[in-house]
């Protein structure tokens, strides 16, 4: 049975096509334009890569911030459920899933069957998400892909006190003006996000194994900062930003 999951996120749109237990193809595009249009483009791309026709897809489930905008999806499910299902499939021992995407961060506790038992999300603002890191990278004039590694090479961590993305940016700029090395500032930024996520993890209660999903899981500095805070190893999927789409495809497969 061939199914697809589509995760229409605020920054990128991901499609994953699944045949039974095999991933046939994946596609990822910048959301940027009208949701329905990007959804179609990403789907066309994934279908082409999988070398199948659209009609062969038996079921399609959408998730993500724009999940209701996908005209060809038969059902839509929350990101929490999809990240839980995707993580459980890849890591059956996972009990805590940390999903940090572009504009939201979530912590999800799941049981041995991958069923969501509890979850917590970021409050009110974008501090603690991918967009926040992007803003900080720009403020420091460092490519986003490099900030994680640079944050690990610090001498003295700087304290970032502001919980607001906008105020944090001005705080970072003032540290730069004082001549504080970028690595130290970056270490502080990563720690401040780790603090926020640590709070969410504690709210629902951490259980091992811990899996991290979402684009920010590709940031090694973020993973290390969190591991240090949580005192445990964090498992990272090969393509962490695809886990929502994977979960959606699995739900599509298992729906009657």
């Amino acid at each position, binding site marked *: 049975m061939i199914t697809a999951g589509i995760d229409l996120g605020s920054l990128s749109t991901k499609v994953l096509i699944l045949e039974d237990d095999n991933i046939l193809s994946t596609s990822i595009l910048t959301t940027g334009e009208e949701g329905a249009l990007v959804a179609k483009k990403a789907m066309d791309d994934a279908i082409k890569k999988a070398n199948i026709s659209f009609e062969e897809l038996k079921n399609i489930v959408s998730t993500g911030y724009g999940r209701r905008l996908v005209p060809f999806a038969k059902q839509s499910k929350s*990101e929490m459920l999809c990240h839980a299902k995707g993580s459980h499939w890849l890591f059956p021992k996972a009990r805590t899933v940390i999903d940090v995407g572009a504009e939201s961060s979530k912590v999800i506790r799941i049981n041995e069957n991958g069923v969501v038992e509890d979850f917590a*999300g970021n409050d009110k603002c974008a501090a603690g998400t991918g967009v926040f890191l992007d803003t900080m990278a720009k403020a420091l004039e460092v490519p986003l892909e490099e900030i994680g590694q640079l944050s690990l090479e610090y001498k003295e961590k700087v304290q970032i006190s502001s919980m607001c993305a906008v105020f944090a940016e001005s705080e970072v700029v003032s540290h730069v003006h004082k001549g504080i090395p970028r690595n130290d500032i970056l270490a502080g930024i990563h720690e401040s996000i780790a603090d926020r996520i640590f709070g969410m993890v504690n709210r629902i209660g951490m259980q091992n194994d811990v899996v991290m999903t979402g684009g920010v899981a590709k940031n090694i500095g973020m993973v290390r900062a969190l591991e240090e805070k949580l005192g445990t190893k964090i498992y990272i999927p090969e393509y962490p930003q695809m886990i929502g789409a994977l979960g959606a495809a699995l739900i599509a497969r298992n729906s009657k």
Partner: protein
Amino acid sequence: MILQHFENQESGIMNAIRENPESASPRKKLALETARLGKRLYSNTDDLVWAGPLIPFDLLNAMDVTPAFAEFIASILVSTDAGPLFFENAEQAGYASDTCGYHRMLMGSALKGMIPTPKLLISAMSPCTGGLAAMENLARVFKKDLFILHIPQKESDHGVRILADHIRDMAESVSSHTGKVLDNDRLRKAMENTNKTREILSDIYTLAQQVPSPVNGRDLSNFGIVLPLFFGTEVGIEIAQAFYDELKSRIKANRSGVPGERIRLMWLQNRIQFKNNLVKMLEKEFNASIVVDELNVITWDPIDPEDPYIGLARRSISSPLNGTVERRVKQIVKLAEAYKIDGAINPCHWGCRQGTGARGLIDSRMKEIGVPVLNLEVDCVDPRNFAEGQLITRIEAFMEMIESRPSPW
């Protein structure tokens, strides 16, 4: 402008019922009576007293003094076109944007001269000091006196007696500021009306507990907060009776409030006061019904019409919003059990001790009885801070979680 709003609302409802008598519903009856009350507040004809939560409105009604319930007026102003402007006025005057939206709305509209001037203001020290501060500010704007009612945090004979005396002082203060005398026969009659309303309310809540429930998520929203405005009056009895009759007829016709009810929810504290799609989405997509609101509860015994002050004092003290969070949590757990709810939604109203401050204690106690709580982060009054997409995601995830677990009952 606001008077016009209430006049339009009243005539709109009356015309709709005249054109289609079958469209009459208890909710429309409640809306009609609140529009009429709003009209009286803005007509410059009545003696008004501004009052906050826990103030015995029935006592004011017995004196023929119209209660201008602060939070109620704020929630009505939100739905007018000028709502956002009032928030901006308050913020420009220095009221922080993360304080309670009810109070910001009151201050913004007062500064613009858009709320009616009372003869007196009354505020209790409970449930929130923010509310008291707002009333102090209003008193300054209106250049009127503020009477502060000290409500003990827990019930004791001594505390009840002190509050009873204090309520008597309050009535005297109202009298001296309005020139209205409290007639003993009127007071007795008002208490009888209050008791009758209480009795019907109790029956309504018993009916709402049925599985499936005859109420949908909208029928009784704000009910326990707004209805006390009509305590002591015949209108209060009529409104309550209309709801009772409607629920009874739904049960007789085997009709649940939400068709195919699958998930039963409790809404904590107060509802989101501006237009939104969340409740409808719950009903439509998940067959989920908000079967009980935390404040739709009777925590007090009938009031002795021959000695009303003691009963009024007990009622104010017994409010779930008064006293410790622990006491409030006990009441929430009782409701969860009575209504057999699958989950509770706590909007965690911004800047509110009752909303955000109590969150951890509510969560942990509810967890013990197997009922999950969804904490949102909503400004229930200021729509400028409303991110519906984020909220829908959380609510969806919460519904999916409830669907995947066995019922706690």
